[in-house]
Each structure stands twice: as structure tokens, then as C-alpha cells.
């Protein structure tokens, strides 16, 4: 019974770790995506270091240089970067 419990605890830990890894990878890809989108608009940022998701396709991005931008897709289908 004890061995069974140990195995299930271990399995839970592994799944949690894998889930955390997936979230981290997603977060990194979003940060990279927003970094590129902001740079393409010609706005200063350097690199996005933190992202807050406000809604679907609507983020607040904090940049390495201290700038903060709201990045979202407007109803016309255009990416809008607004300085906060």
C-alpha cells in the first residue's frame, strides 16, 4: 500500500512538473511573440520580461527597458500596441 502511495505521489509530482514546464514554455513563446510584435511597430522595448493576460489576444507586456504596452487585436484584425 505504501509503495502504491509513493508511486502515485511521484506520478502526481511528475505531472505537475510537466504541466509547469508547458506553462513556462507557453509563457516564453508569448513573450517572444509580443517582443517581435512591439519591435515591428517600431516601439522601444528591448525584450518583454513579463506578460499579463487580460483577455483573449489582449496582453499587458512589461519590457526590459521599463516600458509597458497593451498589445491586442482590434475588431478590424489589426495588432494594436498602446503605450501604458
Amino acid at each position, binding site marked *: 500500500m505504501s509503495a502504491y502511495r509513493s508511486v502515485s505521489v511521484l506520478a502526481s509530482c511528475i505531472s505537475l512538473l510537466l504541466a509547469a514546464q508547458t506553462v513556462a514554455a507557453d509563457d516564453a*513563446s*508569448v513573450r*517572444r*511573440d*509580443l517582443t*517581435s*510584435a512591439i*519591435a*515591428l*511597430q*517600431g*516601439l522601444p522595448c528591448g525584450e518583454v520580461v513579463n506578460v499579463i493576460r487580460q483577455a483573449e*489576444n489582449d496582453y499587458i507586456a512589461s519590457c526590459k527597458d521599463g516600458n509597458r504596452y497593451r*498589445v491586442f*487585436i*482590434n475588431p*478590424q*484584425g*489589426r*495588432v*494594436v*500596441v*498602446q*503605450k501604458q
Partner: protein
Amino acid sequence: MAWRHAITLAVSLVVGAGLAPGTVPARRPAQAAGSTAERPRANRPGLPSPMMATDRTTKTDSPAPKTAPKTQSAPETIGAPALDLAGLEKRLRDTKAIGVFTKLTLKNQVEDLLEQIKSFHEGRGGATLGELRERYNLLMLKVLSLLQRDDPRLARDLSASREALWNILADPVKFARMARGGEAR
């Protein structure tokens, strides 16, 4: 400025002989610093999204000192690879190397450029063909720099098609046909 040089260098590394420093556009496209990209306008689903090419015909980026002088128009089509616009567009759409926001931003910028080229062909645009070519080159650099790390094959294929793409955009008849083809899709 340093940003532009970095991109030029990076793209040159990937593209190899495809780009020379002299081909780098002299200025950025009209983007007001600090402004947003929000410019309400009608969607133009009919226009496909061909990407950019570097300028080989308007600037002397290759010295070629020992060859006999050639005519300006001759090298454009000889030996050019077959252009698969739809395939390139699909690969750009599907590539994982560029995120959703970045893809959409690029798409917006390509559509803006296509609109400017359309205006030029209709004789109501403010920009000259040379200026449009500069914008085209810059956009191509952006796309290539984004692709080169995670999708080098697409970057290479896109780069190889740049001259053929520009030839379509610069020719009013081909451009109109392409626009109609996009609408039909």
C-alpha cells in the same frame, strides 16, 4: 539604427550572397514613433500576402567588374525559380517560427504595402516606385530575420523568390491579376 544593422547582418548571414549592405533601405516605413498601429480601414481579403524582396535592379550591389555590361532587364527572369505564391503564403501561415501577434502585425504591414502599391498603379499614390521598393525590402528583412532561426528553409525559399515577387508587385498587369486571384480564393 543599431537595430537595423543587426537585422541586416543577421539576414545577410542566412541569405548569404543574397543581400549586400548597399541594399539596406535608407529609412523605415512611415511609422510614427510612439503611435499605435491602429488605422481603421476596410479589410482587404482579396489581396494575398506576398513578402518582400531586395533591390537588385535599381542599385549596383554587385560590382561584377569583369563581365561585359548587360541590359537592365535581362537577368530578372533567366534562371529564376518557379514562384509558388500560394505555397509560400501557406508556409508562412503555418510556420511555428513566428507567433500569432507577429504574424498578424506582418500581415497588416504587407496589406498596407499592397494598398500603397495599388494606389501607385492607379496613379493616386504619393509614393514613388523606388520608395515602395524600399518598404518592400524592409518588410522582407523583417520577415527573414524572424524566420531565419526557426524556419531557415522557408527563409531561404522566400529569399529566393524575392525578385519574382517584386516583379509581380511592380507590374500593374501582374499585380491586378494577383489581386483578382486573391479575391477568387
